[in-house]
Structures are given as C-alpha cells and as structure tokens.
C-alpha cells in the first residue's frame, strides 16, 4: 500500500519526507500526491491535541475493541505511538511522537481503488515508527546535526525505505 511519511519538527517544518510506493503496483494518483503534505499538516492539530493526553489512544479515533482491556495493558502505557489519528476519504493517518516531540506522521492509502477504508495493522506500523525513531536518535547524536534541520543523509533515507519495505508492504 502506498504511504506518505514525514517527520515534522518543532516549528511544523518537515525535516524528512518520503513516499513508499512500488512502480508495478500502486502509486498515489498524481492529484493526490500533491495533496499529501496538506492532508498531513491538517492532522498535526490532532497530534498536538493527543500529545498531552494521558491516554492518547483511548481518546483517538481508533475504535479498537475493548477499551477497558486496552487501558489495563501496555498499549495504553505507551504514548509515543498514537495509532490512527485521522482519516481523509479512503486514507488513514497514523502518528508517533519522539521524546523531543518530533512528529512522525504517515498517510496510508489502500491498494484497491474501490474506496474501501484502509485497515491499519498497529503492530507493524508501530514497529516501523520505533525503528525510524531509533534512526532519528542516531541522527541527533551526531554533533553536527542541529535540531529541526532537514535530514539529508542518503543512508538515513535508505534505511527508512528498507524499514518501510519490511513493515509496510504486504
């Protein structure tokens, strides 16, 4: 499934953007491709709202089963991964926050064109975010990297794409 992924800095500036598609299968339709950054930015308000909630997932749009069980379990204990936070026509938007409040946001599109809403598999998506988070921490550890600067490293780009391939393509 095609995805558009971005890391948004403290000033709402994108520090990294990528599109995960495969040429044989699916791509974002051109008209949608242009819209991605706007859709994504529109959902930042929701991220900022969830950012300070004690149980961000419970308050989110995800209507996963068993709110009671959820709050008892580790999933609600963790507030980096926010899960699905928004949707826009057939698209789903997920988000993740790093400890320094970098916003990791992704637009998921469905494989089919029948307009069916995208199903988000929290497990792999969360793993993807956590691994990208690790890459981000490594970026930050470099003394020459300045907070909120764009991440231009081709190695970073390659790693992120490899992670997308591992976790997001089905």
């Amino acid at each position, binding site marked *: 499934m095609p995805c558009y992924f971005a890391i948004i800095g*403290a000033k709402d*500036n*994108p*520090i*990294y*953007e*990528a*599109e*995960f*598609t*495969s*040429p044989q299968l699916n*791509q974002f339709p*051109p008209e949608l491709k*242009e819209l991605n*950054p706007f859709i994504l930015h529109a959902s930042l308000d929701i991220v900022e709202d969830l*950012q*300070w*909630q*004690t149980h961000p997932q419970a308050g989110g749009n995800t209507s996963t089963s068993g709110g009671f069980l959820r709050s008892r379990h*580790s*999933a609600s*204990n*963790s*507030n*980096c*991964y926010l899960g699905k936070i928004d949707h826009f026509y057939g698209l789903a938007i997920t988000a993740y*926050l*790093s*400890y*320094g*409040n970098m916003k990791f946001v992704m637009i998921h599109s469905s494989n089919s064109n029948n307009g069916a809403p995208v199903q988000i598999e929290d497990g792999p998506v969360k*793993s993807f975010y*956590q*691994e990208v*988070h*690790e*890459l*981000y*921490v*490594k*970026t*930050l*550890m*470099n*003394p020459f990297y300045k*907070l909120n600067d*764009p*991440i*231009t*490293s*081709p*190695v*970073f*780009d*390659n*790693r992120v*794409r*490899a992670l997308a*391939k591992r976790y997001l393509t089905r």
Partner: protein
Amino acid sequence: MSQKIINPSTSVAPAKHSDSTGYDYTIGPQQTLPNAPSLSKATTSLPSVYNESLHASARNPQVSLAAYAFLFQELVTQARNASKSVSEIELRLHRNGYHLGIRLLELLNFRSSVSPGSKNFFKPGNSSQGVNVASSAFQEDSLAQGIANMKRRDLRMVEILQFIHGTVWSYLFGRVGDDLVKSSERENEFMIIDNSPLLTRFISSTNVQCDFFVCGIIEGILDSASFPCNVTAHSVPEQNFDQKVVFVVRFEPQVLEREALRS
C-alpha cells in the same frame, strides 16, 4: 504542475554515496534497498552514524575523570577567550550544555525502553574488537527490535524532573541527585539538589562554569520535551557539603496552564 515540490531533505547535495542519492520526492521507491550487500561496510564511503549502535554497552563505557576535567577546563577557556562579557561566557557554556541536553532526552529515554530480557539485548562480544563487532553487525543491531513498548513520554513537570534527577543524573554523574523539591512559594518552581557535584569536585576553580553547563543540560532536556523554562544554579554551602548546588527550575506559565487543563 511540477513534480518538483519543496524538497527540504535534498537541499544539500549529497556526495560520495554513489549508490544512493538520498531522499528525493520525485523518485519514489528504490528497488535496491540497503539490505543488499552493496551498501554494507565493504563500500568505502564515509562512515555513517547509522552503522553505529545505540547500545550503551557497544562501546568503551568510561574515560578518566582527569581527561574530562582537562577537556572541560579548555571548554571554559575557549568560552572566556571568545566572549566579551561575563554573561556571554555564561551563555556559551549554557549552549554547550544545551547541546547535550537535547540529545540525552532522546537517547536515555530510548534506551530505557529496551526490556533487558529481549532477544536483541546487547550481548557483549569479544571486547577487544568491540568496534568491529558493532559495525559489522549493524544490520541486526537495532535496539528498536527489542522494544515491546516505548517508555512513556513524560507529560507532567514532576515526571520529567524525576527523569532528570534520576536517569540523567545517574548517567552523567554516577548517582541520582540528592533531592527534588517543589517550591512552597511558587507554583512553577522546582529544585534539584546536588550535595557534592561531581564536576565541581574534580574541576577546581571552575565551579560557576560547571553550573552554567549543567543548567544548559537541564534546560536542553526540558525545552525539547516541550517544558519551556529557565534554569539557574545557586551555590548553598553547608557544613558537610561545601559545594552543594541547588538548580532552580522555573517553568513558563503555559506549562502550568497545560497541566491544569489536563488534570
């Protein structure tokens, strides 16, 4: 419409990495992904931070305090020589500390997320070749894979201060801070107390400078965690602790407002 949209991640032309051009919005997916052997250490490109491990035990854990003291003294000298006023010296040292703070927030929280029992927890290999082990095994060497759930982001003033007083202090100075106190007079004011600051004890005649530096670390952590504040250090010598320092953290009003809204 042009396909070349704003492209921040390629604003600096990458070089040397002939097998990858980095992020380019217009290219889309690449079929040769870095898992392919072509990008492994056999390539003689610049080394990358992404090949290093975030594992705390992946590298030399300690250096001598003497080496650090010498370095720190030069840091202070450098700040003095480059400054025209006392406040500029303070500012520079503060900035050096801030540089550390923003990194420690992410690094230490990320590390705390790894559960010790996980299969990816670092097993010290043949220590004599620690560096080689770390670089050759980088594909498997992901901390994230050993993380079931990330440690919670700290949302309250007290939580994030406990992180500093506990985790950060132990990491930097080998023990937790001596006390964490809330001011009885001001709602936004907290105090982190260190009875015998490690740096000041060993770096003579630079007490004040050490404090600026540590203030910078604290403020870097709090600021990047979205707890804007002002941190000052106050020397409070006592009978048994003649170098006792109190770090006073004063949060900006919006932090209090946010906290009041949620509770």
